């Protein structure tokens, strides 16, 4: 049960490690989980127009976690922002828990997609952007978070190559780059998107002000990618 006090408690960034340790049982967290922590926090704290009281609002922004691996940071942020009860966190991965090692949108309040198999979020995000446009919903923005190694999947490149020429301005991608791809994209990640007509910014993925500035930078007529660099996975 979630008490009123728990729901009304305001969580800060500094609470996230504690929320994550409720899932992992210790103070150390895998790099795949924490690489996304700052990006997720800045998005949910300052950028996304989403409301846990109105999770089905047609006018909400859509955030699609494509990189479903290591979702502890995601669950921690969703809990901190009131989408799911904090007391769900200790059950992480258990048979009767809604919180799996990859998220399921039908089980996790606030999760727009289930993910785990890489390369699915960005194509769905393209369709989401097109669907909102077709219904005359001008406000909602669409965000997909992917990992640098996830860009190995060809499905992303189908989406990148389509979204640029289609001028999907409301589409945003955050690539969390922890240098985990065995074969880095020739020319770099931002250049791949720019070649397809996207607006692109590369920033320090731990610098909240830099992330916020990159997330909110204008990009008229073009989709926008933010490459958020964090410490290499192998470091």
């Amino acid at each position: 049960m979630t008490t009123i006090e728990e729901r009304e408690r305001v969580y800060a960034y500094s609470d996230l490690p504690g929320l994550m340790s409720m899932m992992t049982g210790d103070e150390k967290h895998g790099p795949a989980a924490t690489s996304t922590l700052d990006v997720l926090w800045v998005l949910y704290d300052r950028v996304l127009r989403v409301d846990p009281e109105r999770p089905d609002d047609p006018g909400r922004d859509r955030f699609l976690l494509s990189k479903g691996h290591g979702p502890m940071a995601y669950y921690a942020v969703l809990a901190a922002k009131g989408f799911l009860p904090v007391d769900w966190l200790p059950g992480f991965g258990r048979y009767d828990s809604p919180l799996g090692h990859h998220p399921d949108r039908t089980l996790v309040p606030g999760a727009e997609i289930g993910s785990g198999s890489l390369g699915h979020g960005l194509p769905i995000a393209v369709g989401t952007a097109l669907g909102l446009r077709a219904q005359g919903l001008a406000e909602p923005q669409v965000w997909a978070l992917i990992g640098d190694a996830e860009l190995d999947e060809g499905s992303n490149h189908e989406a990148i190559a389509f979204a640029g020429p289609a001028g999907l301005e409301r589409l945003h991608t955050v690539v969390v780059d922890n240098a985990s791809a065995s074969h880095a994209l020739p020319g770099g990640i931002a250049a791949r998107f720019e070649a397809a007509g996207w607006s692109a910014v590369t920033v320090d993925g731990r610098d909240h002000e830099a992330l916020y500035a990159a997330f909110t930078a204008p990009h008229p007529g073009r989709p926008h990618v933010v490459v958020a660099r964090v410490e290499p996975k192998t470091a």
Partner: protein
Amino acid sequence: MDTMRDRFAPVVTRLLDEDPRVAVVLAEIGKDGFAEALRRHPDRVVNVGIREQLLVGVGAGLALTGLRPVVHTFASFLVERPFEQLKLDLGHQDAGAVLVSAAASFDWPAGGYTHMAPGDVALLDTLDGWTVHVPGHPDEAETLLRQAVAAGDDKVYVRLSVQSNTEARAVDGSRFRTVREGRSGVVVAVGPVLDAVLAGTEGLDVTVLYATTVRPFDTAALRRATETAGTDVVLVEPYLAGTSTAVVNDALSDVPHRVLGLGVARRELRRYGTVEEHVAAHGLDARSLRRRITDFVTGGTATQRA
């Protein structure tokens, strides 16, 4: 006679006009038929280029915003190539769509095996919750397309083919029709194989059921038919042989029964030519069907006597 596919774009164009939820997603194939629809509804007719993973992903994204996507290309590139997208972007996301395929098992034999998809229905059978329509005539295709689009947020597959029966039957999007009644076996003819089945069973004492919606399978109609015709069941399917054998076994699990699953063979023929030649090569022409069905319902005695 026009083909099922000739009906597809005009029918869906009318649905685009009538229903603001309807959207069409294409991957180049079939785009010419939607040129006028694209002019009228530029935001609801999307051609993603030759990108079939994106084709299905975009369909799922449209559905998640509340639209009713109609997703179309050849069966090989709609079901086989982006199969994980069907499993995850639609099934796992709990998103609905209408998939409309063309080219079927061997509509374009000269195009070779790359454009043949006899395994499409069997593949969908590994997933939960799909409705599968296999019309046998352009008029039936039109009816079933409309039903598919109107089916809420269901996941529906409509399998169009150039193979067709000469006359259309009334179809209701769920039940089998009894076309002929007999006492020594039940033959279930799926979609465009009906004419060959009727010709092949002429004079035989068998019941012929006509199926245009195969998932869910009308087990009630099958069981009713077995009450007078017995529990020897022959399936004649225009896709991979035996695709529905397990469904029939499950439907009759409480009674002794036999099932013969006829359809397209798994073996790759590596032949070109015509549809008729491929029908014959897979033993689905009227003469072959007559021999195979007769052998089965008589326990092989007919051929032995011959």
